């Protein structure tokens, strides 16, 4: 596993191929859109998605924390998915998750899917968080220095064999950064969709997650998802929300 260095507004950051951001100077690990409880929310609607989503997402978190031993973890919103999450955690692994949260400082930045985060779980709760010129939020606004989640960016690229590879990705132009979703059952929105591409005033780069490393690909070299091409005809800014 090798991390890829990236400068955002002069700060030295590292991209982990598992889909998390590191800020070594601050000993900080940043993750976005865990959506813990998504499977249970689907099950409540009668769609019995595999219940192992909790175990899977938790395992990803544990591995990251084990690997980087941060002093602080920031969850960039939508850490818990809807009202089902609290009940699910109660049943599935409250102690395990809580122990993980209490290993270091933990900050929940709140998102649109977060309902009340159980106090007993641990961690501080804030709507946004600033440090050393960077501002950590859930929903991006396009301002400089913003590190955000919410949009679940994915990128597609055509291989020489004309096969399309679709991967979760970071997106950045060096002034702002979007994180991929870390949750096991999180869908994605094409980075070329106006909802994402529109956040960058100029050219930007997608950082695609490989199994062992991160691949930087300029947005102009990506293959757009069919949906993204609607801007060819209608340039109105859509405010589409990602498929959570």
């Amino acid at each position, binding site marked *: 596993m090798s991390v890829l260095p990236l400068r955002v507004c002069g700060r030295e950051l590292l991209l982990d191929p598992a889909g998390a951001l590191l800020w070594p100077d601050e000993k900080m690990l940043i993750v976005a859109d865990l959506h813990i409880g998504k499977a249970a929310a689907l*099950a409540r609607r*009668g*769609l*019995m*998605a*595999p219940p*192992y*989503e909790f175990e899977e997402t938790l395992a990803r978190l544990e591995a990251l924390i084990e690997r980087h031993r941060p002093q602080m973890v920031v969850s960039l919103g939508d850490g818990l998915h809807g009202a089902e999450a609290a009940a699910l955690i109660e049943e599935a692994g409250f102690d395990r998750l809580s122990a993980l949260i209490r290993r270091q400082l933990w900050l929940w930045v709140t998102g649109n899917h977060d309902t009340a985060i159980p106090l007993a779980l641990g961690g501080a709760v804030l709507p946004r968080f600033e440090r050393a010129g960077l501002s950590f939020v859930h929903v991006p606004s396009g301002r400089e220095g913003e590190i955000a989640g919410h949009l679940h960016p994915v990128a597609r690229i055509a291989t020489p064999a004309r096969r399309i590879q679709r991967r979760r990705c970071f997106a950045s132009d060096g002034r702002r950064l979007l994180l991929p979703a870390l949750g096991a*059952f999180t869908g994605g929105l094409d980075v070329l969709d106006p909802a994402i591409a529109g956040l960058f005033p100029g050219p930007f780069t997608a950082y695609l997650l490989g199994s062992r490393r991160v691949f930087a690909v300029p947005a102009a070299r990506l293959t757009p998802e069919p949906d993204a091409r609607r801007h060819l005809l209608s340039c109105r800014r859509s405010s589409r929300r990602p498929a959570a």
Partner: protein
Amino acid sequence: MSETLIDPLGLAPGLETALPVRFARWFDERGWRPRAHQLAMLALAREGRDALLLAPTGGGKTLAGFLPSLVELAETGSGCGIHTLYVSPLKALAADIARNLEAPIQEMRLPIAIALRTGDTPSSARARQRRRPPDVLLTTPESLALLLSYPDAQLQFSKLRAIVLDELHALAESKRGALLALGLARLRRLAPAARVVGLSATIAEPRSLLRYLSPRPESVALVQGEPGAPPEVEILLPGTGIPWAGHYATHAAPAILDLIRRHRTSIVFVNTRAQAEVLFGVLWRLNDDNLPIALHHGSLDVEQRRKVEAAMASGRLRAVVATSSLDLGIDWGDVDLVVQVGAPKSVSRLLQRVGRANHRLEEPSRAVLVPANRFEVLECLAARAAIAEGALDGSGVAAGGFDVLAQHITGVACAGPFDADSLFAEVREAAPYADLSRADFDAVLDFVATGGYALKRYERYRRLVRGPDGLWRLADARLARRYRMNVGTIVEAPMMRVRLGLRGRRLGEVEEYFVSTLTPGDTFLFAGRTLEFIGIREDEVIVRVPRRAREPKVPAYAGGKLPLTSALAARVNAILADRRRWASLPMPVQEWLEAQVRRSSIGEAGELLVETFPRGRRHFLVAYPLAGRNAHQTLGILLTRRMERMRLAPLGFVASDYCIAVWGRVPITRPEELFTPDLLADDFEEWMAESSLLRRAFRNCAVVAGLVERRLPGREKTGRQVMISTDLLYDVLRKHEPEHVLLRAARAEAAQSMTDLRRLSDLLHAIQGKIKHVPLKRISPFAVAIIAGIGKEFVGGEALDQELEAAVEELVAEALA
């Protein structure tokens, strides 16, 4: 009036076969004579016996199925609820039958009400049918499942006397067949007095269909229709020669046009939508007489298809270029010629297509086969010989999937509380589930109730609850609505509508995958013309007619490729192996075979011919197993994997129905080391788990079983929010619960869609020590067909013949140098 009963099982003599006076007079007035099998069906119905009628198209099969019901209803009067339920694989066929039934009913003034119930039936008509049930209801397997899911199903079907399943050979083997079989088992419980009738084309092995109709197959009478005149099949070899490679047969277009000109009405069948588009385009360019020729395939807009069908039925068309969308059913009456362009692939399907011509039994159907390359000439010859011998590649009944069973159990729960023991017994009466174990049934039931996970976390979200009375019932009435929105077993690849201009008319649908490969300005063939891709808006593909006429950049898109059946492949092999038969082959084919013998080899019977040769800076290996495209595709993946491990630096592979070509940077000197039987064992499990085939199968099963919701065009905007990629579910499930019932369902489906895998493993065993390796300095005549396709293969499509021509000429020159 003939009274001979053609019945291998032996009907008791002295059965009442006389027609009531009203019916006899009706036949007389038309100058018709009831056929023996029609009278046999009547007699069997009077006995209340189940029956399977095997008869060729044009044999009055449908009337034979309905005659007993009409007679009975004329005697007993109508209005007592649904008397006869008719199930057809096609909506259009059901509609056609409804129209055809009106004639005798009106002419004999029979007091019989018939109605149609398909996905197209408006809700007002459904409500009416519910209030005042018709005597005869015509429907499809999916609509039947829906009808059975309503709490009043018991009431609706309690007076049922007859169940007629049409075109059974086309249904029994499929997932839809499994769904229908479950519906049939249910109907038998709701209406034990009803007799079940199956109507099928002539098939080699009717035993499995007898079991399909009844859990007591020995009680089902088998009625054999009159065989009809054998079809006349010709093979078209235009004087211009036969191409070495390619699939479009555009070389034969002038000859095909000439055939159309010399016949009243022709159907020109092709194998893929791409072929349909390309051939239609070429025919139309040559069509100086402006003969009315139309195009028909499954991606065209429904309206457009209906128009073509109507024009065809009323005799306004001289020809239609069609894919399998016209294989079944509808009686065109006046078709006097069927042209099959490209390899027939399967004898049964070819016969089905040939039967579209001339629906009068006494006269032979006339068909012309048009091979597109030299291998296909052999295949056409083999198919013609098989038809002459009446040797069909049979229709069996496949084991039913757990996903279809899950859907059925949900449907049963929607209709009302059920007892698990009696439902299990009922399900086992359905032929595809005859061998279902109780443990598997319980696993599927548990899946429907709670998702069936070892981790019991969804108790509070249960879909089914078991009451103190021991009966299972739906936990939430809203689930019934979802069931009804998602019923059916056909899961289409995600499609997008094609619209001509922003506010123009709809032309049809294309696969989303195809669209994702286009960039604005790309031109492609669709609906018979060249269109320019402009972009996408609101889930619709917007196109326009290009300002200047241009050759399409992207030929067309594929769809509907069928692999060669093993029976037909064996016949082609036999032709190749028997030199004495070569003399009777067309001259260009003989020369081609002789050139192959001179330059390389044909291999003896039972041997696998493997050629190796350098070309450009690459080293090629071409093997000729004749095991069908799917098997060769798999073989290609496995061979390249093994080559990687043996450090042979593979670069790529391409597969056809006849052969597989792999190439790399290093010469392959010992191919026998590649083709060992453990090829499958070694890499196969691993490959299967990763393969898109299994992921696709899982997606199908997830939709059918109700794990995720169906994606329908137009419903996507609401759908996107709750859509979850089945790939994510698959990955997590495979890691945490590999033996989950849906993964087992997906594996079974993938294995079934690759029956060719068994062919592959049989083949690998059969050829051990019998590999005929021919190292060559250059490409062989046989290899031209496949090497010419390399690099020309568009994602899922193929290159135009014209584009290939230059490349092929070069290769041919090289092969004969």
